[in-house]
């Protein structure tokens, strides 16, 4: 992102692309310690890189000694996902894989610790990562944790440098382990965590270390664990001299360059005795500087010599997909608040903050108790997270922050003189003045805190941030100070950073150039002013006019300075204007010339407005006169101008607002800084406060939780990343885990289902996907999943696989509470399970007999009778029902038995008869895909009579397959995370057992921590089943064909119907007709568990190869047959 080195700091060492790396190669053992100093990374922007890494691979990559082993030539072997982050050359995509699967000590399938009790696994599941420096050496305290248990000496030795874990370019370079081990971080799976490796991995001959190690490592890794503890001890004891206490408490922020220079010189000493002098940067001109107008920040107040301003933070409000009535209520509440501020000058300021990708990665890692063990040669969990973060940063998501400043007091001469005097003694504003102001500002809390803006007082830190962002307009913000501690800047640090920002202007130019002297960042900023505005219909047709700029993908800044005029002022202002118009009319009359008709029209309008002002509410009469500016930044002048052009175009086309690009850009840019004077008086806009309220710069469109996998971004009015953890509803919100996907064929349901399944499986969730048509089976061929996944093809399965009785599990007593109440619940559950079994068996029998027979009343009676005879236990079979029917004293019964036996002769129908094979669906595989390859699904629009025999069989097969997929989830622990994806759920409609299945799924999902994804082509299926109250997450894809289906989908989303949102559904994933390429993305409207609705563009391209494996187009499948490894189905089957 930004250059990390301060100019001239590494004495005489040219900053090669891998500058950090170059240092450690010929270092003595103790020295790379210093080179790794976390202080090096405190330059602004560095923390924002936010490279996070799960702790496991790190420990692998830090063997303590052999720093001398690596030569520069081997540099290319260092393989880390981080190397290319800072533009360094990544040594090829192919990783040097040595640790084969044979070295794996753990069972291939991870057992899942219960998600509800992650405490043993991760002591602190909060955001704060557990690997703070102080934590690290204490790893012995939690010996249960496999991830930490190995806390090998290397990690001990790095104690003061945990920052390095997040700062990859430092880390792999200084740490030859990946080279030596020959395995990338990703390959450091469970094998490396297995104890016993360390001592052996330290070969005596460092020169040919790679070769030795490659040979030694596998052997070492398979060494018995018993050797571990004693063997590791010596290294542990060897390490302490490097964990020297004095280095640890260093203040990271205070030593930006010093240690690095020290190490450089130390390294130089033996080679060259003369010291190379650091190049001195010369500034030709006198480098003037001007103090800002603000002299003091006290709490949420800022003082300039003449005025006092109170600042408030406006939280984001949801705008998209809300009913218009709600939006209007919001706007009128906000305009009332503005009207309540009549008489004051406001400064509305919106700035942005880059999305904290590192924070998210830490969160998701903390919530992932046991990610899928890494497969050597593929991207591991850490690489997966890094890829996601890089994707996040590449797409440049920015979160808005809106500040409102109310300039409310003029300072008396005495006050400002007192301040001046007291400043010389270091005291600032007088206590008395502040006390007096403190009482005055309370009125603003009252006005702004109410519904509408819901503003809260800003803190001094936030004001500092705002000031810095305003001085360094559109520049990259300083990152967190340190990724290890809370990363906050100390008081005043951010303001001190403004010293580094230089401003250049070309005398008549249209941009201002800003240069950050510390990072070398250069920005060109163009400030646009809001010019003529045409009438807007804000909730109905148009977007809020200062939120609208977020459609464009780069962050922009907004500054609005307005005076709010109360009814008296605005009426006086208007009346003056009216008199001028009238006198002009009179003039025309006196001179006997026809007055232009516009004068009469304007006079009438002024009269109407004047009438509104005098008779209406304060909201109608208050006016906002002021200036609205948008700042656009770019890396070069051309980029900046291009962006400004696009913004101007967008505003004039969509909102009919003409944005002007005035001269005097340096003044305009200065106007963004709180407290600075207004640039000039051009482009003053005079508007009623409702129009100012409708600017709504704080509008946003967030959706999803911030702790799940990255699945894409919002695609409506602004771009925010969308994260989805399908277990969030159960674990946090205590809602059901039923998620519904609705789209037309080709809308991307299956792909999304597969992608979510993949991402969940990576996080160690036990995933079962039911995909009747079969393309998702190719997920199991992905190299990182292959050892942990299984395909079950029902069409080739054994007898009894789908035996209906055993599909419904019997509840266990242990699942219920102790005591009499628990007993009672248990009994109810058992009898419910029996009733459900009977219902299912009846439905299956009805589906198996021809529809003509099924329609007869006696058939249902006979089936019910027979099913009643058979005990409804898991051990019963359909054969029992047939024999029971045969024993009946009734011809019809015998006939039915024969009909069922006839069906049983078909190969597919044999699945229903007999007992299920043992261990059909063990709970072991992380990902199981159930397919029915080759099965022809019937068209539900055609009557059942006309279905072929095979199609008729598909119906009961689908029913039972759904049950089978869910059945697997009842096997393991209740609290462990499970996910079931069911495609083609619309076949469940119209059958009693189908509804009871979905209801049960939704109910059980919370109890069993089971995320159930149900995909269907028609929302009516879900609405018809009447389970929409249990649905927590909804994805609706493109629905263009049928308006009725679209309005039902909207009801599922709980979005107002007939408000024009149907068109939104039809326009989802709209292909560009002029392009011959396939559409590269899919869009959905998503409703999350908190009821937020947003248009989402699903993008999982950051996962290498996932889209190739999920591609369901015929050409891709054909190509995949050749390119992708084909799955030997019999092998994968149980």
């Amino acid at each position, binding site marked *: 992102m930004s250059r990390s080195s301060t100019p001239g700091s590494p004495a005489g060492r040219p900053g090669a692309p891998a500058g950090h790396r170059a240092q450690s190669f010929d270092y003595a053992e103790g020295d790379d310690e210093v080179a790794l100093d976390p202080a090096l990374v405190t330059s602004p922007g560095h923390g924002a890189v936010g490279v996070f890494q799960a702790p496991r691979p790190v420990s692998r990559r830090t063997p303590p000694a052999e720093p001398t082993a690596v030569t520069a030539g081997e540099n290319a072997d260092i393989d880390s996902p981080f190397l290319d982050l800072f533009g360094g050359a990544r040594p090829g995509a192919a990783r040097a894989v040595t640790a084969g699967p044979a070295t794996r000590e753990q069972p291939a399938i991870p057992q899942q610790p219960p998600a509800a009790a992650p405490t043993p696994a991760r002591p602190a599941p909060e955001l704060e990562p557990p690997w703070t420096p102080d934590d690290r050496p204490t790893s012995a305290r939690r010996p249960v944790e496999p991830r930490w248990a190995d806390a090998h000496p290397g990690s001990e030795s790095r104690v003061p440098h945990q920052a390095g874990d997040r700062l990859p370019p430092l880390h792999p370079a200084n740490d030859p382990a990946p080279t030596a081990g020959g395995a990338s971080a990703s390959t450091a799976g469970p094998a490396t965590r297995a104890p016993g490796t360390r001592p052996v991995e330290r070969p005596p001959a460092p020169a040919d270390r790679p070769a030795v190690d490659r040979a030694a490592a596998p052997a070492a890794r398979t060494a018995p664990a018993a050797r571990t503890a004693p063997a590791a001890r010596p290294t542990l004891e060897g390490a302490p001299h490097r964990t020297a206490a004095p280095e640890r408490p260093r203040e990271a922020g205070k030593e930006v360059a010093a240690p690095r220079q020290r190490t450089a010189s130390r390294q130089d000493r033996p080679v060259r005795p003369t010291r190379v002098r650091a190049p001195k940067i010369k500034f030709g001109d006198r480098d003037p500087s001007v103090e800002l107008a603000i002299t003091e920040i006290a709490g949420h107040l800022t003082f300039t010599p003449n005025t006092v301003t109170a600042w408030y933070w406006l939280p984001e409000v949801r705008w998209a997909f809300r009913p218009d009535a709600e939006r209007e209520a919001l706007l009128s509440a906000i305009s009332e608040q503005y009207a309540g501020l009549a008489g004051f000058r406001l400064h509305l300021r919106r700035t942005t903050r880059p999305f904290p990708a590192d924070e998210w990665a830490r969160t998701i890692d903390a919530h992932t108790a046991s990610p899928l063990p890494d497969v050597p040669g593929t991207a591991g969990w850490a690489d997966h997270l890094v890829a996601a973060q890089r994707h996040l940063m590449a797409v440049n998501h920015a979160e808005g922050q809106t500040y409102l400043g109310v300039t409310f007091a003029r300072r008396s001469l005495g006050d400002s003189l007192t301040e001046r005097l007291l400043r010389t003694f270091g005291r600032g504003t007088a206590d008395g003045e502040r006390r007096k102001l403190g009482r005055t500002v309370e009125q603003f809390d009252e006005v702004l805190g109410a519904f509408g803006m819901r503003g809260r007082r800003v803190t001094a830190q936030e004001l500092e941030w705002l000031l810095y962002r305003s001085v360094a307009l559109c520049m990259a913000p300083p990152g967190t100070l340190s990724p290890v501690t809370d990363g906050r800047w100390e008081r005043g640090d951010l303001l001190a950073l*403004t010293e580094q920002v230089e401003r250049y202007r070309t005398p008549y130019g249209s941009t201002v150039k800003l240069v950050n002297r510390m990072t070398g960042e250069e920005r060109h900023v163009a400030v646009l002013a809001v010019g003529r505005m045409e009438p807007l219909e804000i909730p109905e047709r148009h977007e809020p006019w200062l939120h609208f700029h977020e459609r464009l993908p780069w962050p922009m800044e907004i500054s609005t300075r307005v005076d709010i005029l109360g009814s008296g002022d605005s009426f006086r202002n208007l009346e003056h204007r009216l008199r001028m118009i009238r006198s002009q009319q009179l003039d025309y009359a006196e*001179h006997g010339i026809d007055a232009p008709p516009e004068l009469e029209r304007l006079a009438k309008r002024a009269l109407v407005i004047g009438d509104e002002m005098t008779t209406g509410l304060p909201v109608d009469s208050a006016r906002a006169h002021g200036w609205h500016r948008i700042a656009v930044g770019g890396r070069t002048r051309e980029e900046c101008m291009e962006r400004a052009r696009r913004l101007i175009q967008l505003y004039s086309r969509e909102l009919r607002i003409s944005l002007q690009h005035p001269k005097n850009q340096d003044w305009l840019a200065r106007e963004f800084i709180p407290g600075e004077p207004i640039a000039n008086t051009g482009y003053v806009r005079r508007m009623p406060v409702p129009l100012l309220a409708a600017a709504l710069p704080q509008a946003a469109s967030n959706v999803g939780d911030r702790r799940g996998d990255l699945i894409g971004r919002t695609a409506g009015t602004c771009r925010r990343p969308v994260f989805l953890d399908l277990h969030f509803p159960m674990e946090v919100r205590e809602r059901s885990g039923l998620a519904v996907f609705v789209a037309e064929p080709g809308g991307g349901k299956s792909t999304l289902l597969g992608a979510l399944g993949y991402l969940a499986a990576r996080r160690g969730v036990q995933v079962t996907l039911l995909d009747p048509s079969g393309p998702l089976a190719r997920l199991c061929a992905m190299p990182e999943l292959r050892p942990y996944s299984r395909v079950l093809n029902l069409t080739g399965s054994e007898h009894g696989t789908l035996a209906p009785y055993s599909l419904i599990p019997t509840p266990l007593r242990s699942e219920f509470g102790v005591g009499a109440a628990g007993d009672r619940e248990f009994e109810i559950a058992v009898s419910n399970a029996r009733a459900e079994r009977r219902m299912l068996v009846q439905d299956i029998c009805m589906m198996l007999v021809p529809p003509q027979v099924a329609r007869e009343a006696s058939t249902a009676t006979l089936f019910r009778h027979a099913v009643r005879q058979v005990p409804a236990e898991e051990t019963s079979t359909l054969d029992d029902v047939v024999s029971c029917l045969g024993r009946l004293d009734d011809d019809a019964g015998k006939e039915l038995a024969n009909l069922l036996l006839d069906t049983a002769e078909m190969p597919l129908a044999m699945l229903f008869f007999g007992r299920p094979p043992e261990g059909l669906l063990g709970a072991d595989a992380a990902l199981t895909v159930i397919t029915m390859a080759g099965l022809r699904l019937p068209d539900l629009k055609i009557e059942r009579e006309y279905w072929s025999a095979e199609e008729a069989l598909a119906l009961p097969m689908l029913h039972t397959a759904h049950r089978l997929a869910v059945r697997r989830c009842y096997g393991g622990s209740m609290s462990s995370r499970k996910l079931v994806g069911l495609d083609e759920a619309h076949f469940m409609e119209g059958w009693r057992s189908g509804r009871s299945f979905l209801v049960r799924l939704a109910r059980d999902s919370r109890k069993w921590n089971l995320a159930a994804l149900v995909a269907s082509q028609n929302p009516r299926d879900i609405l018809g089943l009447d389970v929409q109250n249990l649905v927590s997450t909804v994805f609706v894809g493109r629905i263009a064909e049928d308006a009725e289906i679209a309005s039902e989908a909207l009801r599922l989303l709980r979005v107002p119907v007939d408000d024009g949102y149907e068109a939104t559904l039809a326009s989802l994933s709209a292909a560009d007709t002029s392009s011959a390429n396939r559409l590269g993305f899919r869009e959905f409207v998503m409703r999350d568990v908190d009821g937020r609705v947003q248009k989402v563009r699903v993008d999982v391209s950051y996962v290498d190869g996932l889209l190739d494996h999920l591609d369901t187009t015929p050409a891709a499948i054909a190509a995949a047959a050749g390119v992708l490894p084909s799955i030997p189905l019999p092998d994968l089957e149980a």
Partner: protein
Amino acid sequence: MRLRTDDDIYRARLVYLGPPGYTLPVHLPYAQYGLFILLVPLYMFIHWLFTFTVELFPAWEIALAIVTTSFIFRHVDPDRPARVVIRTALTDWRRTREPAVEQRDPRLVGSRIRIREELA
């Protein structure tokens, strides 16, 4: 909700038609006359600086003031009052060519701002 600005009222073109009983052939905004009246003494003063004489009928000055006024008002519109145009002209008048030199503005420095966490 149909929302519109009040700007059109302020956009009304107010022109001077002439003294009562006599209509001028051209109708110019009042502001233009005002600017003209300011410019004539300015040019007279400049003239005086060179010659140390004051002419009875300042023909050149009037002609220059008319030209300058009309030139300035070519850039004036309701959103851009005359004083803004003049101010911009004095600092940044229009040019199509991007100039080669850039000049450094003073840095705006906030490091001397005093910060209190709490008010009072």
